[in-house]
């Protein structure tokens, strides 16, 4: 590369490293993490890449959340109607499942939202 000096090379390498770092730290790929709130307070942030189950306590009792294939769902809940369980898997940034009687909300985080809001 004509005209490139040693100092330039250092700057080039530093720049590449910085750019790579910025992209790596860029907030949100869709559906990377989920936030669990109980009575409006954040009680857990869960990595959707790590399959498994988590027990979260709410005013009615413990709910069991399941993570698999980059998605999260209410697996079991102490509420009577089980609407939260029936709402199924939440995968995309901005999607949420809620158990109103147990005051628990699970929301998928991420800035790469395809939709700002869901109408349902």
């Amino acid at each position, binding site marked *: 590369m004509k005209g490139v000096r040693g100092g330039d090379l250092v700057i080039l390498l530093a720049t590449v490293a910085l750019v790579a770092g910025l992209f790596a730290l860029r907030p949100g790929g869709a559906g990377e993490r989920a936030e669990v709130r109980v009575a409006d307070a954040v009680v857990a942030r869960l990595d959707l890449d790590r399959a498994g189950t988590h027990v979260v306590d709410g005013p009615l009792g413990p709910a069991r959340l399941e993570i698999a294939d980059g998605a999260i769902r209410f697996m079991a809940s102490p509420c009577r109607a089980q609407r939260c369980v029936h709402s199924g898997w939440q995968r995309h940034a901005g999607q949420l499942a809620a158990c109103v009687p147990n005051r628990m909300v699970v*929301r998928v985080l991420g800035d790469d939202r395809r939709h700002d809001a869901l*109408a349902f």
Partner: protein
Amino acid sequence: MHQLTRILAVGLFGVGLTACGGETPVHEEQFMGLGTVVSIQLAGVDEATAEEAIAAIREDLDYIQDGWYPWRSGSLARNNMLLETGGEFTSSPGVLRLVQKARPLEEASDGLFNPTLARLTEAWGFHEEDAAGPPPDDETIAAIVEAEPSLADIETDGIRMRSDNAAVQLDFGGFAKGVAVDRAMEELSERGIDNAIVNLGGDLRGIGDRGDRPWRIGVQDPRGDGVLASLTIEGDEAIFTSGDYERGFEHDGTHYHHILDPRTGRPARGTASVTVIHDNGATADAAATALFIADTDQWPAIARAMGIEAVLRVADDGSIQMTSAMAERVTFEEAGREHQVVELP
């Protein structure tokens, strides 16, 4: 500066803007309100203004929940007790305004939007967040349906109110979210906030844009896991949906949802979901309920009478109908998704 260094410096600056948020800041907050999850997004607003506006909306939603829920000891509960006596009484200004606002919508919907069915709602257990059945017996349902409660039975004179029909018990469950979202938008407007979404558990009103792009809305597939169709907010509009997958319970293998047909006293059958767009939340809310209940050949006339042009209706067999005004707005997730475009009369 050496040329390469300059190029790299300029390139790095550009990436920094993208990565570090060259986009309009969006303040987002979620909380429980009106028995659902409330989500508010405000674009291009400083934190202090955003937090103040959201606190005011939250306070108003709490007020609505306490006052307009007929099974709590608020103004609507008191109003219902007095209606039952048959005598004349002084209504609260808030309840009176709701009745006046709902009256033309009930008439235009041919009675399919009927906010006087609190007894029926209670008989089915849908006044509780956790309705679990079983369904009420036939006699209980028949007694309410045969009494034909309606807003037309309520006489008002100034702030005085009375009804001859003891079955008339107000329940604004199919209306309160619409009124609430309109009030929230007024609150934002008064503070000069004109780029926002207020989403009350899937029923929303949006205004303006997200700064760098329009607000994008996904309409949930009533028979699938994800999004059926997408659209963007244009100007200031409310998008309301009634679906059979919302509140309800299973009993003896049958799903009973909470949208009750005033003609039968039972969950309306034939529709999976109806989504409407209108510039007013209260009208959109009432219309989504009425059009959900309406029969397949009846809904276009009801939509026209209620002033709704954009309607997306998914029947319980999964078939899709929509008006041409809605067809111009939505993009299906699944390219080429079969649907019928219906012209309003």
